[in-house]
């Protein structure tokens, strides 16, 4: 997996600087500036790099044929899928890092709001849950209909997911709270399922 991570980091650093800057800005500049109110929900912007970076990497891999080459190299499906999870984790850290820098820069008073850390934990858990769904559906979504339609389909799915949770979170609060408590574990446990989906996705070739 070290080789795959090395390759992904090389591609991100050499060919995705502009998107990295965009994601950094999107997380750094909180909604506070637009709304005038400290807003923990601005953490949703962290989903942008968490989804955008692995998705962009997958698109490039499929377009330049690397995904075919990768399967001839001595990497197991677990290592291939694991490298996507690792990149998603790094992307989440990139987003969180700039988000909190932005909070410190523009709305430090947010940190002293009542229930701040409780709300922050709630938001982080939601993000991990959505990231889990994204990683599970990544290979399945983009494989069978081509990379461009697959990306469009995935983005729509995630946007609907975010809207649903934001609008109806209260209604399903009980279930969501239970899921949120274990969302970091769900993120990790989704790896074997992703591997199975990745193996199945080969049948679409």
């Amino acid at each position, binding site marked *: 997996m070290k080789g795959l991570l*090395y390759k992904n980091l*090389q591609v991100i650093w050499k060919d995705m600087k502009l998107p990295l800057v965009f994601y950094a800005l999107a997380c750094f500049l909180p909604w506070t500036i637009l709304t005038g109110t400290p807003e923990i929900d601005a953490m949703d912007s962290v989903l942008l790099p968490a989804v955008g970076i692995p998705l962009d990497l997958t698109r490039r891999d499929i377009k330049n044929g690397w995904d075919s080459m990768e399967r001839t190299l001595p*990497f197991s499906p677990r290592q291939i899928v694991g490298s996507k999870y690792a990149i998603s984790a790094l992307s989440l850290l990139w987003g969180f890092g700039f988000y909190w820098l932005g909070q410190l820069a523009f709305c430090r008073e947010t940190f002293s709001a009542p229930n701040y850390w409780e709300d922050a934990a709630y938001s982080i858990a939601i993000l991990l849950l959505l990231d889990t769904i994204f990683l599970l559906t990544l290979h399945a979504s983009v494989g069978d209909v081509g990379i461009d339609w697959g990306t469009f389909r995935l983005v729509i799915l995630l946007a609907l997911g975010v809207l649903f949770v934001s609008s109806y979170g209260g209604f399903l609060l009980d279930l969501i709270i239970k899921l949120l408590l274990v969302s970091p574990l769900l993120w990790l446990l989704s790896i074997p399922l992703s591997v199975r989906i990745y193996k199945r996705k080969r049948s679409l070739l």
Partner: protein
Amino acid sequence: MNAIQCRGLTKAYKDFTLDNITFDLPAGTILGLVGENGAGKSTTLKLLMDAIPRDGGQVTILGTDNQSPDFHRTKEDIGVVLDEACFPEVITPKELGKLMGYAYQNWDQAQYEAYLDRFRLPRDKKFKEFSKGMKMKLAISVALSHKAKLLLLDEATSGLDPMVRDEILDVFNEFTREEDNTVILSSHIVSDLEKICDYIAFLHQGRLVLFEEKDRLLEEYAIVKGTAEQLDALDPAAVAGKKVNAYGAQALVRRSLIPATFTTEHTNLEDIILFLAQDSSTSL
């Protein structure tokens, strides 16, 4: 020992089926896999690597079932060159060497550098700036730099000029000087295959029409020319393919089965393949 054992390999697509491919390839030999565009050469190689799942059959590569959980370890001993070299666009040969060093336990950086020098490939140029020939040479350098025992080369010489093709065929020949090293080279440039291959497999419309030793093919088969009526008089078992036009007729025949009264001409691999392709129901 066989480097590859293939039994009933099958893959069905909507409008194409690779049907019941069966062959054994002894270790230490070079197999030329020939066929027209769309015959199934690339599909066969991808199925051998389990890069795409098969619909039926069994494949054993270097003693391991290619669908076993351990097959990714066997890939350490297999070098693959796809029909289009598929590395990340922004990566340089230097970085590619580092990547492959992480991927392969037996990666030989000194060997890789030697091939880069031999093929005159710049180390710090991005892959997307390479010409087609350079990309192919880079892919071959990678395939030959991890002590592989088996090379799978999918159209590795297509689109290259004759000088470069000759250089690359020499490299493949050198590879097989190690006793157990095996090569499968797919190509529709039959003259390349005739130069270096020990075995020839001919794929036509998804079927394996022919799998034979090259030298035996060239000894056994010959061209006979005459009128259509003369050729019709031949034993059908002797005739492997026939062409009739306004100027006369030619047939590909088994020398041992035709009367001595017929004058035969030596044939080459290209003629044999063309005759067989024309009569697609023919199987040797």
